[in-house]
């Protein structure tokens, strides 16, 4: 059953879109990431113009993250205050990122920067996460005790001014590191068209040392705010949000996210991280290695001329 998308101006298979939304929603609920880094490449592959794909899937991310956050919120697994601080930085970052990306596109280098960001960020984060989680998994197999948790938090977290209490995370730290992380994630999400969960989750675990129980929920809460901001900005400035596309995707997405959040309870954290690391690495390589392959046609249409 094909359906014509009014803004993307292409005809696509509707059940396929719902299925895609469901799979990405499931992964989103399972790992606490938005899943945009998976969705955007698939949509572009289906023939949807990249600008519309990125803008509309931001709306799907809002829906599937919201679906999970309501579930996590009931379990008191969301640090709303930390999420708001991160999102404040994220808003600044995405405004910056939109401008940076606009300039890169005018120079015709948008594709290159997107490919390289995917390769570098997904490659590095996926690789590090894979090493760390495989190590943890092996130690468990050998029956060794898990690596002693370094309870001492890094001193720089405490040395900075503008401290704030985050009771849900049991932290009393300066807001400067979370705001900077938010800005960085905001730039990335504007350039790569993603929510930034794959950067945020490791940053909260390894840099801010937040308790594992609130990381996923807080990450998703932050993603809702950032991607809502991106959706409104994209609709208002570029008219690239396709409601028909977004509706089909989020219909599958909210269901998938619920199933994912449920399934996450059945797996060990390390096992989940191994799977996520492999997915992240594969997508990064797939997107990034394209710039090394000799193109079949040396000419490409550049976006931004209305056609």
């Amino acid at each position, binding site marked *: 059953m094909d359906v014509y998308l009014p803004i993307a101006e292409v005809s696509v298979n509707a059940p396929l879109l719902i299925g895609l939304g469901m799979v990405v929603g499931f992964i989103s609920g399972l790992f606490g990431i938005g899943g945009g880094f998976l969705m955007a490449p698939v949509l572009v592959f289906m023939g949807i113009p990249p600008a519309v794909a990125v803008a509309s899937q931001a709306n799907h991310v809002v*829906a599937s993250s919201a679906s999970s956050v309501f579930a996590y919120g009931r379990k008191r697994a969301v640090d709303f205050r930390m999420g708001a601080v991160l999102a404040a930085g994220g808003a600044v970052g995405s405004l910056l990122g939109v401008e940076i990306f606009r300039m890169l596109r005018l120079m015709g280098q948008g594709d290159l920067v997107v490919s390289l960001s995917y390769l570098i960020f997904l490659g590095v984060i996926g690789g590090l996460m894979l090493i760390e989680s495989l190590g943890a998994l092996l130690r468990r197999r050998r029956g060794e005790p898990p690596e002693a948790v370094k309870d001492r938090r890094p001193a720089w977290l405490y040395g900075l001014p503008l401290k704030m209490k985050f009771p849900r995370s049991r932290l009393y730290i300066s807001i400067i590191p979370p705001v900077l992380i938010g800005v960085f994630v905001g730039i990335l999400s504007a350039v790569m068209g993603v929510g930034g969960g794959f950067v945020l989750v490791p940053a909260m675990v390894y840099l801010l040392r937040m308790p594992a129980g609130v990381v996923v929920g807080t990450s998703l809460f932050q993603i809702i705010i950032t991607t*809502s901001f991106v*959706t409104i900005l994209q609709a208002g400035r570029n008219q690239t*949000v396709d409601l028909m596309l977004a509706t089909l995707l989020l219909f599958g997405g909210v269901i998938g996210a619920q199933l994912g959040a449920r399934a996450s309870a059945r797996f060990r954290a390390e096992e989940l991280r191994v799977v996520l690391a492999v997915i992240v690495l594969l997508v990064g390589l797939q997107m990034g290695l394209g710039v090394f392959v000799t193109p079949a046609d040396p000419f490409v249409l550049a976006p931004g*001329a209305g056609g």
Partner: protein
Amino acid sequence: MAFDLPPPPVSAASVSAALTTTMVEVSSDYKGQKIVLYGAVFNSTDRPADVVVVVRGPDQPVRIARKVQVAGLWLNSRPVVFQGAPGFYTVASSRPLSEIADYGTLRRLAIGVDHLAFKTPADGAVETRFGVKDLVVSRLGSDYLDYRRAVVRIKHAAGLYDQNERGVTYVDKSLFRAEINLPTAAPIGRYQAEIHLFQEGREVQVRQRTLEVRKVGIERTIYLFAHQRPWAYGFLAVFLAIASGYGASVIFRRS
């Protein structure tokens, strides 16, 4: 147009044509559309006449970049803008265009994908050269043809540009038909169909018909809303997303 041509010899050849569809409605089940053009040639002379059908969609500027290899990476060169490139262009005839009219005539009438008038004003830098002021130079220079061919090739691959020397078929001696295939990617807007009648390499008559491709129903509502009230549209999209997320979480909690 006739003033720069010698008056055609006392000719009794003329053409008339009609489109079977003049309004293409793009709704949610739109998958492109095939449009049939019917026409008749009235030729009381003994000289053979040729019909060439040209359908041109609304202009859609094209930005095109060439990939160049730098240190192992394939980078895009600075994009070049082609103004005046039609978003859809198809030519149908009953034999090769080069046999119907000469190069100059085809170029003047912009018949054939090689004769489309593209302009690149974005590159027309104004310079002073050899003491002459305000010279317009194209940055592309000799690469211009490569870029032009690439635009045609990419558009052809998307089904947007076509040139078919068997596109006009004769049902009987004077009645002909031509099929125009609009893909889903064909732009929305007003299309011009021109039916040219050639005799001995000279255009003796041209007829124009128009065709409109427009969105209808929910497609049109969404499109207009997105363009007329973009901010409200954005807020609605976010509201729908959060509401459906909340709805799903409530339903799943009960089950």
